[in-house]
């Protein structure tokens, strides 16, 4: 894939009808690194990711990818600046074939030989998608749809990949498969921002993490430190 760029978020605030979902959140994802955001349901994880993508309005805050300020870029143009987005609940185009879903991931680029090459890379990463390329996306299993959602985001050749709960509703075996994929993407130099309820997966896939509570950072540190923190162990790992 392509080399990752760093993401810098400063003072991000998101309000829904007067209620703040994210409050003055700042963090950085170094280029080529993987950072996780963990927290309970409703802590503001998804809102943070959607606000970075521009899918929900940012009340305040700036964001930069590498040296480029993306604060004023609309959601539809984020992909053109190198941000790939894997939505919570997969959101594949159920009525279209697998391959059309993937090609639409490259909608912002010209469909040419380069697109074909990226498609081959995605099929290499997820052989099952290649086998099912002519099936309707809606006919795939949950795990296959998750792979399709990731593959679709990779088709844009992103410099930063945002993943919202990729493990949701998957069996432990499939969660393991997702982890393998994330580790491979990271080893290829892509920058990852992973939002998860599954803290165990997140600690294994990332080098550092934020713990979000009530829309603000409650704790942060390297994934190894947090994994051994007694409070995190109790609340998020159930140990």
């Amino acid at each position, binding site marked *: 894939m392509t080399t990752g760029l760093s993401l810098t978020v400063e003072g991000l605030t998101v309000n829904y009808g007067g209620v703040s979902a994210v409050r003055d959140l700042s963090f950085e994802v170094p280029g080529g690194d993987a950072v996780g955001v963990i927290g309970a349901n409703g802590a503001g994880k998804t809102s943070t990711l959607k606000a970075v*993508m521009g*899918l929900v309005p940012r009340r305040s805050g700036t964001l930069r990818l590498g040296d480029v300020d993306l604060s004023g870029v609309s*959601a*539809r*143009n*984020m*992909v*053109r600046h190198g941000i790939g*987005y894997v*939505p919570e609940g997969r*959101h*594949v*185009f*159920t*009525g*279209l074939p697998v391959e*059309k879903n993937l*090609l*639409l*991931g490259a*909608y*912002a680029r010209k*469909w040419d030989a380069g697109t074909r090459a990226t498609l081959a890379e995605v099929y290499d990463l997820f052989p099952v998608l290649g086998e099912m390329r002519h099936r309707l996306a809606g006919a795939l299993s949950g795990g296959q749809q998750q792979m399709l959602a990731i593959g*679709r*985001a990779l088709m*844009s050749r992103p410099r930063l990949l945002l993943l919202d709960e990729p493990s949701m509703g998957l069996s432990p075996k499939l969660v393991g498969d997702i982890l393998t994929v994330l580790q491979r993407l990271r080893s290829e130099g892509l920058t990852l921002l992973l939002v998860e309820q599954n803290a165990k997966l997140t600690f294994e896939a990332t080098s550092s993490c934020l713990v979000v509570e009530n829309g603000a950072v409650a704790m942060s540190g390297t994934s190894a430190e947090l994994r051994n923190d007694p409070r995190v162990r109790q609340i998020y790992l159930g140990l």
Partner: protein
Amino acid sequence: MQVFLQTIVGGVSLGAVYALVALGFSLVYRTMGLVNFAHGNVVTVGAYLASTFYLSTKLPFALAMVVAIVVTGAIGLVIERVLRPLENKDFDLMLIGTIGFGIVLDALIIMIWGATGRAVPSPVQTAPIDLFGLRIRTYDLVVLAIAALATVLLVLFLSRTKRGAAMQAVAMDHEAATAVGIHVGRSNAIAFMIGAGLAALAGGLVGPLLYVSPALGGALGIKGFAAAILGGFGSIPGAILGGLAIGILDSFTAGHFQGYSELVTFLVFTVIIMVRPTGIFGERTVNRA
């Protein structure tokens, strides 16, 4: 047997027109998830524009049709642009907005062309073809051929082009479509434009078959809507099959029940939908409307 076959032949050309109207409904539904209730009224606009260019400015019929399709397509763009703010607020409001736009168009039609209708002479004056004792009007064949061509082009557009795939993706998932870089508003505008163009095609073709009046679109709209539902809403082959089925059913009931023909047509339609609510090719029922 001869009478039976002649009745089928008689219903096919109107059936093709219903199919075109149904295609417009299905296209907008497939790409926006919206049932456009102004569609029938847009058909009337198309019929009046085509007949005006043909009769008053003496353009050749084919050219009059093309101009009418372009102008009506532009009206489709205007409708989408006016209703767009509603889409972002609440989708149901947009649906109601199309009903409102239909009423506005109806009023404009009466203001411009008056409340009485006009007859459009057939552009094809050759004698009917005799095929094994069946009389086939040449114009019916023209209507069939044009409807078939329009359908093939639409299917190719949706299945073979990037824009066509993107338009279908928008209907399936707004947010995911935005995330891959698709301009949702532009996609909807194109859907409305093509839908209105199909409406004008249907309206222009039906002129020489029926009387062009302000009530034309209401009648064609409801038949086309029924055709789309019968075939399975959103399905392209369904729209074609549904249209032809309603056209042939029409032809039979007109022969056997005269004044009650519409009643019988819609009774049969209702029974079929009760047995098979998703229609012939329907995978899903209308749920976003």
